[in-house]
């Protein structure tokens, strides 16, 4: 059972739709009990970093996530803002992140202003760590759908699973053992994203 965490923000419907399509059992979890009972967690999220963290804390999901992921080693996948919240902090706000992967979130900044922020649309990714099960059998140069103004900057290359180029190279997916995050939206990325969610549900 995969729990899609419902803390008041995020496009839960589309994640559930895609997981249903690949035959995964899901629950939209809005209680701590449901999170404790699940085998895997998905942390969605849209909107601002501080609002996301505050909503998580209000429901006391932050503690249960850390407990389930660190002590019980349950796999978790953060998507978009859900990924950013796995880090320490963000330039977008003042709140502390979950601090599960050593990275900070920085705003896109370009020397010339030819590129728009947010980075919105489809982009190719490069897979850095091919051994990882999340990217098992995923071919090179697949496209994924991105909508974001901030991106992760990892302390160590070891935590970078995929990269993408928008003005410069940034981490499109991050990894730390059983903790995964994608900046892009697999649930909105056709069969490319479906493969990745299938890997998360079956291989991770």
């Amino acid at each position: 059972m995969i729990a899609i965490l419902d803390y008041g923000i995020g496009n839960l419907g589309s994640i559930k739709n895609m997981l249903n399509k690949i035959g995964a059992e899901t629950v939209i979890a809005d209680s701590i009990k449901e999170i404790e009972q699940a085998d895997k967690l998905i942390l969605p999220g849209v909107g601002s970093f501080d609002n996301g963290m505050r909503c998580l804390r209000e429901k006391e999901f932050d503690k249960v996530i850390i407990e389930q992921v660190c002590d019980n080693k349950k796999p978790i996948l953060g998507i978009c803002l859900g990924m950013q919240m796995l880090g320490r902090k963000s330039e977008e706000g003042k709140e502390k992140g979950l601090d599960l992967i050593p990275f900070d979130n920085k705003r896109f900044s370009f020397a010339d202003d030819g590129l728009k922020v947010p980075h919105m649309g489809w982009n190719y990714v490069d897979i850095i760590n091919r051994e990882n099960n999340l990217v098992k059998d995923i071919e090179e140069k697949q496209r994924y759908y991105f909508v974001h103004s901030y991106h992760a900057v990892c302390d160590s290359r070891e935590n970078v699973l995929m990269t993408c180029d928008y003005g410069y190279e940034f981490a499109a997916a991050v990894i730390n053992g059983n903790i995964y995050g994608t900046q892009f939206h697999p649930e909105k990325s056709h069969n490319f994203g479906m493969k990745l969610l299938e890997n998360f549900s079956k291989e991770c």
Partner: protein
Amino acid sequence: MYNRPRVIPCLLLQEQGLVKTTKFKNPNYLGDPINAVRIFNEKGVDELCLLDIGAAKSSGSPDFDYLKNIASEAFMPLSYGGGITELNQIKELFAIGFEKVIINSAINKDDSLLKKAVEYAGSQSVVASIDAKRELFGKYSCFIDGGNTKIKVSPAKLAKHYEESGAGEIIINSIDNDGMMQGYDIDLIRQVTESVNIPVVACGGAGGVPDLKLALEKGGAHAVSAGSMFVYFGRKKAVLINVPEESELYREGVYCDE
């Protein structure tokens, strides 16, 4: 760097049917929208835009049950417009699998709706739509209520106002060119793209892939949307859902790899 401006089929719904208008009038019934969405999904289109042109008139609200069915078949970015007047409807649309809402008439009647939507979902999820018509001397005016009510403001000014109110994207639609398949109104698009910094989606008039390129290159649009060219095929405009191959979009310079 990889440059893939979004190419967005725009599907018009009316009473759970798929229709296509000409100059915002004479909706021609084409078939079952769910079937069309399935095909666009298989073809891997960049994004899909659904506009219910009957929602405001019939129930005054989006047809959530029906839209939920559609969203469960579509694994791509999905936007919806039509009959949205309050925040609760926007919340419901996000809950059933849409991630962008398109508002037009309602934000002209209730200025706070746009701000409330942005506060709830973030700019990237809120699209303001402008329907415009050519007037004398190269001027344009804007319309709401499906092209029926004129409002006294230029598209460029309205777009700027929407940007300042927090909209993350503008769709600029030409009423004159709608359904004509003779190309976009490039002047109109340029007036809007030059007035704002947020992405602008061009809509209205595309007849083929070269038109898409013109809207991007000459109009300065960031994404292109079209109806007719995805639902009509050939000179006799036979009803057929069709999507240009990725290779054609590269060949014509709509997409490019640098």
